[in-house]
């Protein structure tokens, strides 16, 4: 519970959906299932020994724990959102939740060597790796660009502008806005730069067109 809480603080600090308590509950629940199945095992060997001998049941200690892994997978899937810009969010939260459930199982089993190390690694992973992640992203040649613009007639000019940045377009997905709801048309472009360039430069170059009202890298 303590470890789960410590992981949760990190996530909660960033204002993510699954915060402090979520991690704590998941971790504690997983530990408890493991303890429960161990308890049943002990009881079968102790107080219930006679009945067990009669009926002939031997319980498998990991049966409870195994379902936790599957169950938290479902829970994690719920934290994943697809935004309107075809962006997937919450995947790291789901993965972290799942990892903390696995850690809870190990805690419940009393496997402390593993738990300390796992906690350390998971903590390092979610605390320090974002820095490395931004470094990789900045060097990447693939970009996904989300644009909103005023009129459908300008799609051609936008495409021309993107190609002027020495980039290839792999995929376009255009959505027409509904004028009654004051929605503007938008498009998602998947492009690949032919030369490595700062992404901000590319974005500002494309944004020079006066028709574009919003541009974002997703």
């Amino acid at each position, binding site marked *: 519970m303590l470890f789960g809480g410590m992981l949760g603080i990190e996530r909660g600090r960033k204002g993510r959906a699954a915060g402090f308590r979520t991690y704590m509950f998941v971790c504690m629940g997983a530990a408890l299932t493991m303890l429960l199945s161990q308890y049943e095992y002990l009881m079968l060997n102790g107080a219930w020994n006679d009945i067990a001998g009669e009926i002939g049941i031997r319980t498998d200690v*990991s049966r409870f724990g195994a379902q936790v892994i599957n169950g938290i997978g479902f829970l*994690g899937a719920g934290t994943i959102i697809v935004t309107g810009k075809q962006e997937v969010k919450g*995947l790291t939260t789901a993965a972290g939740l799942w*990892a903390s459930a696995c*850690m809870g199982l190990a805690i419940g089993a009393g496997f402390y060597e593993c738990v300390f190390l796992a906690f350390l690694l998971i903590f390092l992973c979610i605390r320090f790796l974002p820095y490395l992640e931004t470094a990789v992203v900045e*060097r990447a040649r693939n970009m996904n660009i989300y644009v909103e613009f005023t009129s459908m007639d300008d*799609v*051609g000019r936008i495409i021309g502008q993107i190609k002027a940045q020495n980039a290839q377009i792999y995929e376009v997905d255009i959505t027409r806005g509904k004028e009654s709801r004051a929605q503007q048309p938008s498009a998602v472009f998947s492009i690949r730069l032919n030369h490595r360039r700062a992404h901000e430069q590319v974005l500002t170059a494309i944004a020079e067109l006066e028709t574009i009202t919003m541009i974002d890298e997703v």
Partner: protein
Amino acid sequence: MLSIFDPLRDITVLSVAVRMLLSAVCGGIIGMEREYKRRPAGFRTHILICLGAAMTTLTSQYLYLVLHYYTDMARLGAQVVAGVGFIGAGTIIVTRRQRVKGLTTAAGLWAAAIIGLTLGAGFYEGGILATILILLAELLFSKLEYHMLEHAQEINLYMEYNGKQTLDCVLRFYREHELKLLDVEITRSSDGEKITSCAIFTLRLNRKCTANWLLNALHAIPGVVLVQEL
């Protein structure tokens, strides 16, 4: 079975450390490539999944080998296979054009989980070899994919035109030149009296028609405002 790994096959503090670190590294390697391609699941997601999976097999071995419980060692690990499938399902998007995206990411996430399982179980050869193979596949095939896209016989055209007759003309033009139309997407917008439509065509070129020739020929059709290759 390599003998150098034999001292690490039991559950000791050292072997636990080696397994966990290896799974973090292997998960990171797979995640690195995804991150570089700007896909939703990056570094951290893969490392977390890989670590979690390694922990489950380690725990089940610990229960059996150290605590001597009556248990099936494969049981915890088996659920990982299903559980990570659900998380992966969250990455799959169906776009408005009925295309499916994110399938490779989901599969990669799942593969990272399996590698975590093997490393956690102490099957180092399998896990490391699988990581190397996945990495090779990613590097080689993504090169191959871009190469194929560049030399493809298929071309995506973006076209703006006026009036419905123009579209008929263009379609007839394609048919006459035996260009196979694979996909069309048409959007229409009306600004007062001016009606412009735009269409995105996916065409398969044949030997007679080069892309440049096609662009010029389409421009010559009356009513076509703008043609561009994507």
